[in-house]
């Protein structure tokens, strides 16, 4: 099976910080968690993989990947128009885009709010809307930066269900998060970053049961400082 996203020899620098990722890939149907303390380079890595930042060295290959930032930007438009925005960018005619967006809003339980301004949504609804908008453009890989960081447990579970469904639908998912319980619930594999370096990469079960690097172990035990 070939990966939907593959990175080789990535190097990115800003100031004194240097991010180095020799090799990383994600396969269709897989959820890969990127773990690490604050400032370890998770967001930078996702932005490099999404093509929003250009690496100094290395390359990223694969199909179209969409990126969902921690605070999803909203347009000053209705929920429905926000959902359809990615399709408009691709030149899908307005009525078709709105019809497809509405169907997806029904799936994520936001159809009742389709006509209201998007800025009136709650935090959990904003993330569901943003995720729906991202899924609508059918990315091969989905890159998510702490999507549930500010959500309550009920909304977190709803978003996690969407992520699982996306992976089961054949997308590769890369999820940067601090939520270890979430990683246990969702991830197939874990990449652990510390100070811009990949310290460990392992299947999720093995990572939690017997982390091989002392820094991974310290992180899981809450002893690792950035």
């Amino acid at each position, binding site marked *: 099976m070939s990966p939907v996203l593959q990175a080789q020899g990535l190097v990115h620098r800003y100031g004194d910080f240097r991010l180095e990722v020799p090799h990383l890939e994600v396969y269709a149907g897989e959820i890969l968690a990127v773990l690490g303390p604050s400032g370890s380079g998770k967001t930078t890595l996702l932005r490099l993989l999404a093509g929003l930042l250009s690496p100094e060295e290395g390359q990223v290959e694969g199909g179209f990947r969409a990126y969902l930032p921690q605070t999803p930007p909203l347009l*000053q438009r209705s929920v429905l128009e926000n959902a359809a925005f*990615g399709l408009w960018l691709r030149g899908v005619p307005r009525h078709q885009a709105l019809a497809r967006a509405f169907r997806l809003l029904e799936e994520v339980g936001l159809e009742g709010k389709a006509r209201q301004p998007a800025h009136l949504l709650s935090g959990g609804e904003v993330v569901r809307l943003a995720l729906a908008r991202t899924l609508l453009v059918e990315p091969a890989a989905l890159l998510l930066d702490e999507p549930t960081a500010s959500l309550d447990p009920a909304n977190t579970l709803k978003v996690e269900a969407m992520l699982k469904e996306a992976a089961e639908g054949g997308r590769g998912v890369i999820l940067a998060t601090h939520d270890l319980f979430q990683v246990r619930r969702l991830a197939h594999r874990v990449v652990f970053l510390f100070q811009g370096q990949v310290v460990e990469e392992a299947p999720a079960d093995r990572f939690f049961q017997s982390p091989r690097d002392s820094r991974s172990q310290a992180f899981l035990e809450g002893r690792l400082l950035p």
Partner: protein
Amino acid sequence: MEAAELLEISLRSLWVAGLATLLAAFPAVPLGLWLALKGGGGIFGRILLYAGLALPSVVVGLFFYLLLSRSGPLGSLGLLYTPYAMVLAEAVLAFPLIAAFVLSGARGRVEEVRLLVRSLGGKEGQVLPTLFWESRRTLAAALAAGFGGAISEVGAATLVGGDIRHHTRVLTTAIVVETRKGELESALALGFILLGVALLVTALLVILERE
């Protein structure tokens, strides 16, 4: 001053300022958005643009007078002492107002809009039209500011329009004439009409913005 003449002057003021605002907006809005996309156009670009806000209207009037006078480079067009000359001068005065408003309103949203467009697979070229739509509330304010600057302008209008009765007289120049004649009641009435027109157009823009 008769009611018919008052109406004529008011309508002329409205269309001269309105046309000047539209003429200025066509280059000023894209310029403001483009400067916002380029991080504000650098300190030099911003100084230049904001200096335009303090552009003395008589200097602009003098410039257009020299340009459009019979011996000037554009004298053959025969525009001096016509409402069109006033439109041109007022457009130049409205231009920096509109561009500066658009720049200051759009600047704060550039990174957010760019991130959204790019993260959904859009191209860099799609950022500008998205930013344009997202800045529509600022656009209404920018147009209101441009229109306000144009309709309240008197120096350039006098120099290039000449305040000719039934031809180039507008509310501001009429106020000056009536005041000089000692017709303070008429001047005051014209002043209130000017305020009313400015308020009406601004209200219209605000309503359009809400829609």
